[in-house]
């Protein structure tokens, strides 16, 4: 199936130059896809979707019959990242995660960065992810953010920016692994001779990292994944990771604190857990410490944690750095803690609590993207150029009422990629979420989740807002 007539429309395209010739790293891929007939491509696309359905990689469409489960839309044209570009991304992310970890540790101890006037005290104190219960805590090895998913975007001129850091419970890595498995099954020939770096060792790396951060007491380390349960949207991922690591998948009702340790109810009595990879928010971990009305958590869990009898991954309180205002200070954090310049730049960010920034934002709402500081998943967001007057007016009111909660960024012309639409290829905007594990050393998985905005012209890639995904090939 040919790419004839495919146009980059003036955007940066991940596979093609502006003149329509494939980039060097994409040449072999483009040739192989062009060698497939349209019917064969369609057949394989269907086979890929069937495989995803069979593996139950689905989400429920609420309000319909139980049989109306849908797979997350998957596009068969992979993104290709050449090895030199990946090396830059890898170094940039390792640097960033070290700085962020320093920052979180500092926030819950001496707050040197505040005392030295680099980050304002009110920014830290007003971050919704700040947990006073975590002040003075020392997680094993000093690691707070063990697992991070950082969103990267590329602008029209080709520059890669960090859009946001997801430091709480980033999801999506299971799609990275399953997308690759499905691609290998349905398009084995397309991979030949391309030296695509494997991603399948992620669960093994994750397990090793979890064992590295175990409390010192542990001999044989007992690891478990904590899920809110089968009705959670990310349940597939929770069970997938537990299965691939060969560890227990537990729910709050399986757990109890006894004899100073966190334990699970088994067919042979209560057995201890050393490391808990929890996929629930801080607030629901322990009703005696955080939200008293939470039915999900385990009373006393935080006491065990504080006494060093348990490692929580990520550490509670890590969300303080997930705030979009705190984000704006990451380049300064890198300078402050590491004495280095940021390798990957931030998107220029206007902080609405600063009066001059706010005035600029309110005057330029038709050009900016406005985001609520503590929202994720594409919610609480205004894309100025695409919004109506009423929507812009609504955001102007919200910003004036609560300036601390809003930031604004220029509307980037996100890069695009050919995506299969009806019976041809059209350009669609994409981002990239690589995953970083931080145990003894930061490790960046060579690949990541390429999310694609399937609606024509849309810049929103979130799966809850009509986004799909693609396999991501990092070349060796």
């Amino acid at each position: 199936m040919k790419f004839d007539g495919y146009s980059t429309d003036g955007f940066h395209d991940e596979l093609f130059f502006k003149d329509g010739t494939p980039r060097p790293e994409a040449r072999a891929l483009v040739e192989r896809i062009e060698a497939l007939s349209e019917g064969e491509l369609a057949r394989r696309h269907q086979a890929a979707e069937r495989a995803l359905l069979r593996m139950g990689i689905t989400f429920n469409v609420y309000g319909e019959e139980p049989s109306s489960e849908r797979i997350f839309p998957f596009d068969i044209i992979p993104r290709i990242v050449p090895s030199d570009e990946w090396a830059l991304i890898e170094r940039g992310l390792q640097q960033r995660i070290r700085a962020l970890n320093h920052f979180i540790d500092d926030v819950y101890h001496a707050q040197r960065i505040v005392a030295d006037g680099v980050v304002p005290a009110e920014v830290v104190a007003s971050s919704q992810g700040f947990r006073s219960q975590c002040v003075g805590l020392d997680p094993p090895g000093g690691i707070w953010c063990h697992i991070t998913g950082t969103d990267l975007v590329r602008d029209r001129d080709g520059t890669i920016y960090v859009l946001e850091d997801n430091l709480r419970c980033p999801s999506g890595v299971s799609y990275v692994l399953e997308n690759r498995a499905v691609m290998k099954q349905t398009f084995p020939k397309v991979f030949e001779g391309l030296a695509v770096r494997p991603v399948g060792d992620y669960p093994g790396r994750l397990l090793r990292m979890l064992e590295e951060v175990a409390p010192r007491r542990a001999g044989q380390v007992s690891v478990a994944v904590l899920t809110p349960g089968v009705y959670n949207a990310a349940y597939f991922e929770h069970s997938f990771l537990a299965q691939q690591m060969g560890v227990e998948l537990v729910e709050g009702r399986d757990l109890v604190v006894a004899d100073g340790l966190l334990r699970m109810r088994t067919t042979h009595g209560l057995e201890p857990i050393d490391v808990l990879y929890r996929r629930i928010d801080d607030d629901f971990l322990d009703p005696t410490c955080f939200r008293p009305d939470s039915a999900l958590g385990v009373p006393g869990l935080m006491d065990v944690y504080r006494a060093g009898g348990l490692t929580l991954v990520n550490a509670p309180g890590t969300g303080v750095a997930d705030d979009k205002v705190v984000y704006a200070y990451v380049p300064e954090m890198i300078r402050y803690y590491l004495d280095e310049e940021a390798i990957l730049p931030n998107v220029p960010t206007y902080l609405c609590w600063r009066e001059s920034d706010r005035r600029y934002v309110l005057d330029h709402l038709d050009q900016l993207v406005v985001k609520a500081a503590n929202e994720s998943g594409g919610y609480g967001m205004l894309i100025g150029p695409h919004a109506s007057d009423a929507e812009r007016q609504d955001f102007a009111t919200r910003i004036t009422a609560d300036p601390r909660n809003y930031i604004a960024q220029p509307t980037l012309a996100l890069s695009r990629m050919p995506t299969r639409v009806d019976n041809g290829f059209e350009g669609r905007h994409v981002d990239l979420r690589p995953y970083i594990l931080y145990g003894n050393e930061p490790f960046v998985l060579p690949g990541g989740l390429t999310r694609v905005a399937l609606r024509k012209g849309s810049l929103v890639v979130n799966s809850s807002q009509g986004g799909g995904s693609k396999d991501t090939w990092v070349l060796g």
Partner: protein
Amino acid sequence: MLSRVAESVYWMSRSIERAENVARVVGVNLKLEIDLSGLAQEQWDPMVQVSGGHSDFQKRYDAATRANVIEFLTFDRKNPNSVASCVASARENARTVREMISSEMWGEINDFYLTVTALDARERALRDAADFFQQVQRTSHLIEGTKNETMEHGEAWHFSQLGRYIERADQTSRILDVKYFLLLPSASDVGNPVDDLQWSALLRSTSGFEAYRRTFGLVSRESVVAFLLFDRQFPRSVHHCVARAQTSLHAVTGTPLRRFQNQAEQQLGRLVSELDYSDASEVIGRGLHEFIDGLQGRFNQVGDAITASFFSLT
């Protein structure tokens, strides 16, 4: 392993086995329908009787016609024991334990669910009934085979076996009970071709006809009862099932056979010994239907004891 997970694995396997056996029960009649055409009227009511849903059926359906009974036993989601309900429940259980079962096994269970709930499933079941219900059985076997070949034979596997065999013992007893509800044209017909064909259909729907022939030869009531209740080697006989269930139960606990450390071992052990020392003529003398009724009560007790011993730890 986690108590919650053990319980889900146990019920996952019970539900799949139940779905398979509902298909077998319907299969009895599909076979009789052909064999008896011209000799006797087809009867669909017994299939509902042995499924245990008779009063529910009477409330919601006007007559025990072929279409109604197939709907009730196969697709009716209000009937908790219909094939579709069992498969949906098996899949829900599998979903909560998919980190414990192999990916291959989950794929088969999920496929099973997608097949049974497909939009054209109902139409297929009415049009090519024999084919559809055979597919249900085959899929159940595929899941069982995939489980045995891809899952480690550890504790989760033993809980699955336990569920599978307890359910199968119960279901085989129900299939045997079909004969109690199947009417003969007249009492003097005992031993005539219709009677014979009915017993043969029971054997066939347990996949046991050929094994029976090799062991017992001609079809007789006493021999069929001996075969389906007491045969040691036939994998669907009640004795074989409870013995296998007992093996798995003791593999979980490590208690030597003939000893017990919990209610489940006690109840199941008692049942196995009783079956060890009973025979068909004794059972028929006491009344086959009454014996089966008692047996089903015992299976429920064993089930309750398993729950108390392993799943409801506080």
